[in-house]
């Protein structure tokens, strides 16, 4: 391996390496950090954000951004809990259908009118939360999950890890194949790298963009539904600021916000990194809430700086 390849690996797996480092430091510093219970709680709670981050990765690679995922996450949860009174199928399909349609609409507006994704999905963030409040009597109604099978989807465990973890892993694998090994994936990279060129090379730009936002919407809805299954209820106060967590995770994972480069593994590592940082803060156990925030902010800054320096080492500025 020559130097160029080394640094390329460094950049692609920078997040994973920082993650590994933090885990080692955490295990040495705190006895209760590397316990199975704590690890499981980090992994399980990260899985929902990871599902959203997978969709976000596609969106960001395509050169866009999706701020509506936090709202879609909570809407998905409320719809799933509401739908669960009609059985497992409705509980899953209702949120997927609605969130998919929202993604479709956003994708169509972005692709057809050329409006900035940031602003379209910002409107989505507001509108979807409004919709969620409307169907839950301004947030006052919490639907409870009635269907046992659906609840199991969120709570059942294999080897101490609940089903959503396995679902996330499966989705990540599918997403990796989709991104690296299909024409669709190539199109996503191409329009993110140079949209005009992609269009001239015959890439169906509009269609690809629409698919990407539909995917993001579907995944956010699915994450919301699984979370509702886990919590056994459609909690209405979730998801505020979740879009920023997802974006942070994706960017920490080495995906460029300008589009055209990045990958799923990095994003998943980014999500875990955020989870581990939180867990380390909890391990200290005596920081005031304000200090916790300072520490998270500093951590986040350090991680992105480290990420950045690793990619600079590649000297392909």
């Amino acid at each position, binding site marked *: 391996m020559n*130097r160029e390849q080394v640094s390329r690996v460094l950049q692609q797996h920078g997040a994973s390496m920082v993650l590994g480092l933090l885990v080692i430091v955490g295990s040495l510093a705190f006895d209760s950090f590397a316990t199975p219970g704590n690890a499981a709680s980090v992994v399980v709670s990260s899985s929902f954000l990871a599902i959203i981050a997978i969709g976000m990765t596609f969106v960001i690679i395509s050169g866009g951004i999706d701020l509506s995922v936090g709202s879609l996450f909570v809407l998905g949860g409320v719809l799933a809990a509401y739908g669960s009174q009609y059985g497992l199928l409705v509980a899953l399909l209702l949120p997927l259908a609605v969130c998919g349609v929202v993604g479709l609409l956003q994708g169509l507006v972005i692709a057809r009118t050329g409006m900035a994704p940031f602003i379209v999905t910002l409107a989505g963030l507001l509108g979807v939360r409004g919709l969620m409040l409307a169907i839950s009597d301004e947030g006052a109604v919490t639907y409870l999950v009635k269907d046992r099978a659906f609840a199991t989807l969120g709570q059942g465990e294999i080897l101490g890890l609940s089903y959503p973890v396995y679902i996330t892993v499966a989705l990540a694998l599918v997403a990796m*194949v989709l991104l*690296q*090994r*299909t*024409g669709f994936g*190539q*199109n996503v*990279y*191409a329009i993110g*790298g*140079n949209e*005009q*060129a*992609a*269009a*001239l*090379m*015959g*890439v*169906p730009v509009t269609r690809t963009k629409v698919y990407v936002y539909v995917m993001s919407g579907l995944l956010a809805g699915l994450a919301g539904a699984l979370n509702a299954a886990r919590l056994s209820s459609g909690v209405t106060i979730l998801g505020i600021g979740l879009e920023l967590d997802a974006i942070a995770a994706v960017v920490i994972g080495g995906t460029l916000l300008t589009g*055209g*480069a990045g990958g799923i593994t990095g994003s998943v590592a980014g999500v875990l990194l955020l989870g581990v940082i939180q867990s380390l803060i909890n391990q200290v156990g005596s920081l005031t809430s304000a200090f916790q925030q300072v520490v998270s902010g500093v951590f986040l800054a350090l991680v992105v700086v480290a990420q950045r320096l690793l990619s600079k080492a590649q*000297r*392909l500025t």
Partner: protein
Amino acid sequence: MRRTDLEPVLEAREVSKRFPGVLALDDVSLALQPGEVHALVGENGAGKSTLIKVFTGVYQPDGGELRYQGVPAAFGTPMEAQRAGISTIYQEVNLVPMMSVARNLLLGREPRGRFGVIDATAMYTEAERVLAGYGVATDVRRPLRTLGVGAQQMVALARAVSVDARVVIMDEPTSSLEPREVETLFGVIRRLRDSGIAVLYVSHRLDELYRVCDRVTVLRDGRLAHTGPLAELERLRLISLMLGRDLNVVRSDGMTSFARDRRPATASPGEERGNGHVPAVEARGLTRRHVLDGVDVSVKPGEVVGLGGLLGAGRTETAKAIVGALPLDGGQVLVAGLPLRQGSTAAAIRAGVSLLPEDRKAEGIIPTLSVRENIALAALPSLGRAGVVSEAKIDRVVGIFMRRLRIKAASPNQLVSELSGGNQQKVLLARWLAVRPKVLLLDEPTRGIDVGAKAEVQALIDELAEEGLGVLLISSDLEELVEGADRILVLREGTVVGELSGDEVTEERIMATIAEQADG
């Protein structure tokens, strides 16, 4: 011989296209026969690229009719045109820089393995095989952006030609190619013609046209000026058609605009002023891993130094290193004997060393700003007081250079991105002249510029050198290099492999220097 017996495969009938402020095409007709190579020529901004984009569905015509294979056609998107069999290489390299070479080459038709999933190994093998046919040997897994512009252009070419096409359109494909690659390209074009494919070929390099083209269409200011067989058309006549000027005027002005007999460097005004031995700029041992290896360059006041070499020899990097736009592992740059701060383009510009970059779109123009703002950009600090700009001063400077370089724009306030490629290049030249540099590094200054403008630029280089400006000239056009430069440094793989001066400055000697080193 004209092949009027054949039905045109692609035809435009009285097509018009209007942009805000410009009528880019005005009742233009053009018929492309199968098995012919059809030249499309005209000055910068004549409408060549626009006509091509109308053919391929990038733009919809405002009037007139398109016919493909004898029936009226309207392509909504480039993809439709491509599917129908019209394959295009656009003027600006239009690939995706961050994707790998192989993925760029095969985007949309990657080899599939099991489950319809892309077979990466097969893809890389296939890409290597295809590119080898075009003389490009590179790691196809590398991101495209790590390749030089020329190699990128070859990838675009390979991509366009390797699909099953009935029509291949090339908008200035040779503007960033080396002579050797141009030969490869011509081979490809002849093969295409022989297999009955129609080729529409745009270029400002007239000799090339005479070598490969059968017929020619001349556009001027968005209108059809001439169409007919090329061989029958005298070269000077062609030029006068493009320029819309009298044949005799063109004849008397000659072909290149460099003065016939260059002053020897020793007679430069700088020497007369007594500092002839102090170069205006001197670079010593410029080194950067994999790219440059101890390059020494010096330019005296009033001297034009040419940089020759094949694609990827490191000429662009040398120029960038001098102005501090490329981080170096070693080396030093001296301006008028004083060391320049490393890595600061601003310091270089203040010291009087400026670079006209090779990649106009990525490193040159600011697309969101007007022609006026683009010209004034680098000179801004001197065009105002205490950080407040003086509109009057800007207007004056902009006015001077728009006239001097004959920049064709609806008004100084038109967005620069709406200008044709050649006019954008002139805007950039104006930007650099406005800062009154002592040394100007010109990386492919006449790439994509029409004959008229090219002559103006060449004359300008002469004129500037006469006034005592030092010029480092990088050009893939050997004729230009030979006629323009007093002295030529030949680069290969990031090192200087030869220096030619005086009588040695000939095309043959440059080729020989490159070849001899390459073989040895």
